[in-house]
């Protein structure tokens, strides 16, 4: 009987030892989730000072990244800038969904390739991209990689067709850092930035000659029509208007011809002009010396732009018009839609 009691008591004592909680564990804590042998990396800060961006202008984004296991433990740092139509604070989910394209997203990827070597690449590069990565500061020395934090900076020239913002829309800027154990951290620039409208026009070198035309010729009269003969290219990151104008006067060796923007040409040496982007005289617009709209439906273009190849002019001359060889200017204009 004693043996039975002893055996049972021994087992119960052992059970009691198992059942007592681990005191040291109860007085210490652990971070839920990711805390383990490798500490997670951290985005300490990211900032873009400018709150209004202009395409084809460069800006610097600064971001301090840290990792208690040293910067050498960081695998990648991915900086993204993207068009966010509804603004607000960007989420990590939005960040992850961003892909590089000339209109709506730019990505700079820093990759630690081993030792003290790394690569820094900007995308998009396809589609005639005009986004450019300028000077940048990334870890390059043993000292940098042995440290626990590093102030990264990237100088970026904004592409020509980066979407113009309006209303609540913003260009958001954020960075995500990933370490060797795939732990990540994400943070964003607090304010984002607006993007200004950008418009570009390319007009190949050319002149317009009507040759010989009769005094008093009206729009649509003999030889009054002249095709421009070259293609005009428009690029814009938002809505744009095509406009045209003439210089207020054309100067000859002896005489000066005056533009009549009313189109009546009642006075001596007056002329008037109409223009259309599809060679249709009934749709043609009477030009003035400040610029009239030929088409107000232009929308954001690709980097290649929109080309218009069929511009035509029609001229009208006063009945009294002195013969001369005239010099003047016809101008095509790109303007923001309003």
């Amino acid at each position, binding site marked *: *009987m004693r043996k*039975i009691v002893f*055996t*049972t008591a021994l*087992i*119960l004592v052992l*059970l009691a030892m*198992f*059942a007592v909680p681990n005191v040291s564990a109860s007085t*210490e*804590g*652990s*971070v*839920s*989730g990711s805390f*383990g042998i490798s*500490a997670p990396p951290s985005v*300490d800060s990211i900032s873009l*000072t400018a709150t*209004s961006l*202009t395409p*084809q*202008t460069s800006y610097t984004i600064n971001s301090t990244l*840290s990792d*208690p296991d040293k910067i050498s433990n960081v695998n990648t740092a991915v900086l993204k800038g993207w068009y966010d139509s509804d603004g607000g604070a960007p989420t990590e989910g939005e960040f992850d969904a961003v892909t590089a394209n000339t209109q709506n997203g730019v990505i700079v990827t820093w990759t630690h390739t081993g030792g003290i070597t790394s690569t820094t690449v900007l995308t998009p590069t396809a589609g005639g991209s005009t986004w450019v990565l300028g000077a940048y500061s990334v870890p390059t020395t043993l000292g940098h990689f042995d440290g626990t*934090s590093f102030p990264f900076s990237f100088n970026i020239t904004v592409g020509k067709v980066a979407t113009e913002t*309006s*209303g609540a829309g913003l260009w958001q800027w954020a960075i995500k850092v990933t370490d060797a154990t795939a732990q990540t951290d994400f943070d964003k620039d607090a304010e984002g930035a*607006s993007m*200004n*409208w950008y*418009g*570009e*026009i*390319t*007009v190949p*070198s*050319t*002149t*317009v*000659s009507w*040759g*010989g*035309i*009769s005094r008093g010729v009206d729009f649509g009269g003999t030889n009054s029509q002249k095709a*421009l003969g070259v293609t005009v290219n428009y690029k814009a990151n938002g809505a744009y208007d095509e406009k045209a104008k003439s210089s207020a006067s054309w100067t000859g060796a002896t005489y000066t011809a005056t533009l009549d923007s009313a189109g009546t040409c009642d006075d001596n040496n007056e002329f008037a002009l109409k223009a259309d982007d599809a060679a249709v005289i009934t749709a043609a617009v009477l030009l003035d010396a*400040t*610029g009239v709209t030929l088409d107000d439906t232009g929308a954001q273009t690709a980097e290649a732009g929109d080309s218009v190849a069929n511009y035509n002019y029609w001229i009208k001359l006063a009945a009294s018009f*002195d*013969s001369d*060889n*005239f*010099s*003047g200017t016809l*101008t*095509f*204009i*790109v*303007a923001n839609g*309003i």
Partner: protein
Amino acid sequence: MKRLILLCLIPVILCSVFLSVPVQANSNIAISGSFYRQNFQMVPGETLSTPDVYIVVFNHDEKAVDIQLVSQTPAEVEMFFSQKEFNIPGKGEIRVDVGLRISKTATPGDFVISVTALIKENGQGIVVSGGVQQQARLSILGEAGTINIKTCLVTGELFQSEIHLSRKSGGQLSSVGLSESGKLTMRLTPGDYFIQAFYKDVEVAKQDFSLAANEVKEIVLQARTIFVDGFSVLPQGQGEKIAFAKINYTPRNIYQPVKNLKAILIVKFNGKLLEETEINSFSTLDVGYMGYNYNYAPAQWQTGRYDFQLKIVSGDIVYAQSLEKQLEVKIPSAINWIMIIGIVVGVLLAAIAIAIAIIKRRKGGPQK
């Protein structure tokens, strides 16, 4: 003879508007900037002149171009530029500030105004060229209020910051004023506004305000010249146990040395203040920045959320404060599954041992 006369008359009765010309360069120019974004709202007699309203003209051609700016405005409105005619080298760009002056006798109304950059062509013949334009809306209103703004240090002294004043409209900001003296007085149309104050390109203060017709408003912006950068909280320990939180911070002073400052760490647990601890002191905080760290551990870590914030103070004056950083802490359960399984196994072993003993006793007969 008749044929000769006819040939001579042709040039007389015809007007040639063409002359052979030298080869012109392509026109490849572009425009951007903030001018178009402004929804100008001004009152008669008001002048707007700020570098925040500008255009940028780009020359994407290889050759330099001469540019002339031309404005379109209603009568009694003058548009002026920091430069009106200029040369842009190949692949270059020029930024031009744009201002507006409304005459005292201007008639209220809504208008579209524009600035156009034209290439100055000097070729012979009718040359075709390119131009770029920005258009903006202008409203001339009849009513106005007055705003007096000044920027002060936390100690109350006037601070010579650069004040940028913008009107808020439709989610967008339109610049309406600028001062580099730390003070700004303007007549403004009624509406909502936003002020930012900068010192050496660093934002030191900002504030929203609304202004009503005939209202006179005084605003004092308190400028921050000391900042807490790089504030981070990193858990440290071994295995799954947290030993302490490593607090990293970098005080940055942008203006002038400040004496007798302290760094105070404020810790909350589950939203309630846990402690305020002085973790550093600076007999003089010089201009510039320097990183520090501090290892924090409470008397006892508990499961829950810890909020951390750092303030730089001198007495009751708060010079700077960081954003709050959170740390979620989870204490491991005191009884775990291994322990429970051990207990079950132990009980079973005990039961088996008792059963074996009873069986042996019965087989062995009564003990002596």
